[in-house]
């Protein structure tokens, strides 16, 4: 019975990820902070979704919930129509802070993500790891210790670690904040290529509206306290997109204006 039900529900609901009325709050001293208030959204298979919003509006919290690292207080989260049960390797998170393991070198860190793939041989894992390390431009730093990397190099190592296992869903939390402009633009095109070739579903948090427009099929705008989605913009520009192209500018201006509006709205309230 159950498999049929599942396939029916995926037919009715083709969303890869669907978040239905999810709320999450954190206890702070005696009161509670409502980080997310009845959020609903659905992400299609293969969609590149960008989340933009003021600091502290619950973007990272939402990613953690989808990753299964935290449980929603209200509502539910479905992946392929199935409620999530804790973290799984189909949903990889690239955290806002560096979560690289200091007891491993760069290669060891990238290999860690592959360690849970018994279908690969040791040599295949090694060559996959090397491929992604090269891709992010760290090929001379394979055996570097984590503390020897600069902030941007750490982010690139973390990117290689999250791409290597080829997860179906990639949850990225401000992954490129510490990169220099040139590397970043290089990585924008790499990531668009990988995304298109591997048919990944990506949720991408950023503070850079232009970056969101350059990468996303859709950009969601969050409002803080309580965290809610206030606007959604579809970005229908041809791919691959170049960060500096003129087409991006008008869309990002529109979004930036809305964002400014939200920020002013919240500052007037308080």
């Amino acid at each position: 019975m159950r498999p049929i039900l599942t396939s029916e529900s995926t037919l009715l609901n083709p969303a890869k990820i669907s978040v239905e009325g999810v709320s999450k709050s954190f206890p702070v001293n005696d009161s509670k902070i409502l980080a997310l208030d009845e959020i609903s959204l659905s992400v299609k298979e293969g969609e590149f979704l960008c989340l933009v919003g003021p600091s502290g509006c619950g973007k990272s919290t939402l990613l953690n919930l989808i990753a299964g690292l935290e449980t929603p207080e209200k509502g539910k989260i479905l992946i392929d129509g199935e409620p999530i049960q804790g973290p799984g390797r189909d949903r990889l998170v690239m955290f806002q802070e560096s979560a690289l393991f200091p007891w491993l070198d760069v290669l060891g860190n990238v290999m860690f993500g592959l360690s849970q793939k018994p279908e690969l041989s040791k040599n295949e894992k090694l060559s996959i790891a090397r491929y992604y390390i090269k891709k992010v431009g760290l090929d001379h730093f394979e055996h570097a210790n984590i503390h020897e990397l600069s902030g941007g190099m750490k982010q690139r190592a973390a990117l290689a670690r999250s791409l290597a296992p080829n997860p179906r869903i990639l949850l990225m939390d401000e992954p490129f904040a510490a990169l220099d402009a040139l590397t970043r633009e290089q990585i924008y095109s790499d990531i668009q290529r990988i995304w298109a070739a591997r048919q990944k579903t990506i949720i991408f948090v950023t503070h850079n509206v232009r970056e969101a427009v350059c990468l996303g099929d859709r950009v969601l705008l969050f409002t803080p306290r309580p965290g809610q989605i206030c606007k959604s913009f579809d970005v229908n520009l041809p791919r691959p997109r170049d960060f500096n192209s003129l087409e991006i500018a008008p869309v990002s201006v529109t979004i930036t204006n809305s964002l400014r509006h939200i920020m002013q709205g919240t500052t007037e309230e308080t």
Partner: protein
Amino acid sequence: MKRLIIPGIFIFSCLTAWEILALEEIIPVIFLPAPSKIFSYICAISADGTLFNASWITCKRLFMGYLLSACFGIPLGILNAQFPILQRVFGWLVLGLQTLPSVCWVPLSLLWFGQTETSLLFVVIMGSLWSIIIATETGIRSVPPLYIRAAHTMGSNGIHTWIFVLIPASFPFIVSGLKQGWAFSWRSLMAAEIFVPILSGFGLGQLLHYGRELNAMDQVLAIIFVLILIGILSDKLLFSPFEKFIHHRWGTDRK
């Protein structure tokens, strides 16, 4: 080589001053024999094999006790970190036993095991086990949750997370716990050897004890010198490589 010159000169001048003070009998020989006396005593016991035998026996006891402590201490620390109930029930007990000087076990140990090797072993284990348990547990508890989360999202779970994330992440704590445990084993063994009259083997502690009985301060000082040497060597040989590795990997060395 250069780094050795200044400490070398310092030690040499101290020894010379001491030698002169002792030879001129400014300090009575009974209190502090001259370095040359101590040195010739060391030569004598090295020549007749006493020193080697005693050191061998002492080190064997030390290793036995220490290895047993480590083999039980690390897993027990892990269990304590994994099951909060264990920590709540036994935490204060472990802490209390850790603070207890292990010489206090000597009377009980003698009563239970008599004048045997087991009795020495017991005192050594009681001296080092607890600090290894506590260090392991503290280490595992202080692993940043972010590492565990990252491991979970990469599909690592259960035993895999323990072996490949929690234990390596707490490696610095575990190594410092092992080092502390070693120091405690060493102290406990000396206390035990001095206080437990035992016939199954003459360790360094017993040599020192008989030196005292015979009022032979050159013997006492010679043994103290050997003990210091063993302490330095074991630290350098056993723990320095791990500590170097940790400093190198974690980037905690200040150069």
